[in-house]
């Protein structure tokens, strides 16, 4: 018996699946399962995070509901996955509330931050807020660069610290021997598997979302979102280097590297999350963990808002709307950062750790 009802159910299913094994060609979950004869909490959390929710094993399973064996691996592992985020979150007290109210918390955080920045600017000089600013340093009329950098560095570093603490706890739980270190080859393999979403394709047939036809496009939208996010992150990093190393201040012209990266990334961050959100709306309820709806949609919304406000800022940065848009954009980014360790963002971190573990297991077994 495990700590939770969902882990008991996951254990029951893995026992059923381990005596069948028809799905072993579909993804990494089933080969990893076959390396075990019994399942600890850590094993089940590992398998849950290895699952990419492609849905193929549900459609292919002869024992899925209404069969009396009631085998529903995608849904069970989705719930277990969401609960594992809470179980490993640091500090633990912040996790549960977020899982239930992720969307509300994210939006409140974004708006509060935007209001704070607006207020901050308005207190200084109202004409600055609604003024038209152009040329280098225009953004910093609203908020001094150092204040902005300090605020966002603090938020970012907090997110990194909380994520590191969380993934450490996860890694210790899924690893044998406990505390074993990942090797370079396994990390490289996991980067490839995660980068191409190798296990989000139903073993080659495709993924399932709304029905029993492999017509799902989530992989495409996830790529737009993920690489969009990376491009935006790269844009910010390059801009920071420009600022400190080359003493070149934002905003930059449209052809300059930070803007090009940010524009491409921003497009991805607008289209990708919309596609993922619509797919979630259409998803067969049989496959869905409806309890983590708030967390999932909160993350999608923050990514979308980051992309949308960023693009709006780019287009309207030479108008009077720049001040309020910059405040909104910074609010969205701030909320994205501080909710990262407790929201859907962690799925990428835990899944990556699980893929590293899987690559390690495969190497050991080979």
């Amino acid at each position, binding site marked *: 018996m495990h700590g939770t009802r969902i882990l008991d159910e996951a254990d029951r299913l893995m026992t059923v699946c381990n*005596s069948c094994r*028809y799905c072993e060609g579909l993804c990494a979950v089933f080969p990893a399962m076959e390396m075990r004869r019994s399942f600890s909490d850590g094993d089940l959390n590992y398998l849950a995070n290895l699952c990419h929710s492609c849905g193929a094993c549900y459609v292919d399973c002869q024992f899925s509901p209404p069969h009396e064996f009631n085998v529903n691996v995608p849904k069970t592992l989705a719930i277990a996955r969401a609960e594992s985020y809470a179980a490993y979150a640091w500090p633990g007290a912040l996790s549960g509330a977020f899982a239930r109210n992720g969307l509300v918390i994210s939006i409140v955080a974004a708006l509060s931050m935007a209001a704070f920045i607006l207020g901050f600017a308005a207190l200084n000089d109202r004409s600055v807020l609604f003024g038209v600013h152009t040329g280098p340093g225009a953004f910093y009329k609203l908020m001094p660069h150092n204040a902005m950098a300090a605020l966002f560095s603090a938020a970012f570093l907090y997110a990194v610290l909380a994520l590191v603490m969380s993934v450490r706890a996860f890694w210790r739980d899924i690893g044998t021997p406990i505390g074993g270190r990942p090797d370079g080859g396994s990390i490289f393999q996991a980067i490839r598997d995660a980068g191409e979403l190798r296990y989000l394709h139903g073993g080659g047939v495709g993924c399932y979302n709304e029905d029993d036809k492999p017509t799902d496009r989530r992989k495409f939208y996830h790529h737009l979102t993920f690489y969009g996010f990376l491009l935006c992150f790269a844009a910010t990093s390059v801009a920071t280097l420009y600022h400190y190393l080359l003493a070149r201040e934002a905003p930059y012209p449209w052809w300059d590297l930070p803007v090009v990266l940010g524009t491409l990334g921003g497009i991805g961050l607008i289209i990708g999350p919309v596609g993922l959100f619509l797919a979630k709306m259409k998803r067969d309820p049989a496959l869905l963990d409806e309890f983590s709806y708030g967390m999932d949609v909160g993350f999608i919304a923050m990514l979308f808002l980051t992309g949308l406000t960023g693009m709006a800022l780019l287009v309207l940065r030479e108008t009077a709307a720049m001040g309020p848009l910059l405040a909104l954009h910074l609010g969205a980014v701030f909320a994205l950062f501080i909710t990262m360790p407790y929201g859907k963002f962690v799925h990428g971190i835990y899944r990556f750790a699980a893929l590293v573990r899987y690559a390690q297991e495969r190497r050991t077994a080979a």
Partner: protein
Amino acid sequence: MSSKYDVLVIGGGNAALCAAISARRGGASVLVLEGAPKFYRGGNTRHTRNMRCAHDAATEILTGPYTEEEFWEDLLRVTGGQTDEVLARHMIRESKDILNWIVEQGVRWQPSLGGTLSLGRTNSFFLGGGRAMLNALYLTAERLGVDVEYDAEVTDLVIEDGMFLAARLKRPIRGETEIRATSLVAAAGGFEANIEWLKQYWGEAADNFLIRGTPYNRGSILKMLLDKGVQEVGDPTQCHAVAIDARAPKFDGGIITRHDSVVFGIVVNKQAQRFYDEGEDIWPKRYAIWGRLVAAQPDQIAYIIFDSSVVTSFMPTLFPPIAGQTIAELAGKLELDPAALEKTITEFNAAVRPGTFDHTILDDCVTEGISPPKTHWARKIEAAPYLAYPVRPGITFTYLGTRVNKEARMQMADGRPSANMFAAGEIMAGNVLGKGYAAGMGMTIGSVFGRIAGREAAKHARN
């Protein structure tokens, strides 16, 4: 939905869908009537995982060649010669092309699954298993314009002088109707889920049989055809039956209730007596005899007894083994006579000769001086806790069927071929399988004869 089709296919499994696709590709309009609801569509196909096809060279997923001749020899061996050589050789020849044809219909292969290495050369496994294979066939059939009806129970066939005219159908909502078609393909399986029918041959013992597939395999189409003058083939008591866990559900437990631990221990009946050589041959080759062996024991129950030293030697099981710290304690839990079980195990242990254990070959671990002997893999049962799986006969499918020729055309009792009736799959498996079984052959029979039946049915309809 038009009321007259070129080809009517009754059944919804591998054979039926191969027939429907092949008829549709041959230019015919096709209706498939599946008696089960959509989830349970496909009869036993939903529980299958591979197909045995001849091939002259290794492929991406098959580790080596498996020639027509070798396939034929395997068939000859498992059936003890009870097969129709012309038909069987024809099937084996056609099976080579099925490896490619079935992929063209959307089915995907994968290498043999964990725990099935012994089949890696001969059998091609379906990616995602039999239901995935079925899903692919249905998607293809629907894309090609084949009509499919579920919950479509055929109540009667109108057959005149060996000529199919129409099928009477009871729909759950729209009531009785009649569907006419130019050709019929019967691919509706055997009668394994029809306990009353099984009782005709097995008596009350059939009440203790577990049925591995859906409750919809009742053999009603087979019965109608035989009643209306189609020639019967096969021994009605012959079937594919394996020993499955006695705790399995009555129907549709599928593959996960099976046990492959027989070779690692002994098997006793309810009198705690051994009754067959557990080490006769490499397990997969003898897998399918144990259902009949258990069926012949009192109350159709037996117990695989082993000890804790071998628990990781076989695949993990759905149901955990029943355990006892002593043999007497285990006997108590199994409701066997403790003294009798202790005596059986003591005598068995005393008869075990030293040898080098290797479950992958026919090793030299044997017993001496007991009957029946255990001729390979015999090791003492002495490491507590002692463990057991209760097993019952699990019936996969029956062999009684309709006689067909190489065109999959049904033969009438008077010896003449039917004008427009074809059969494929388990409903005609008895033509090839007089008795015995080799893994994956049911699917070979289904795909090969399904494809042929569809092609011939379309040809007849278009002439």
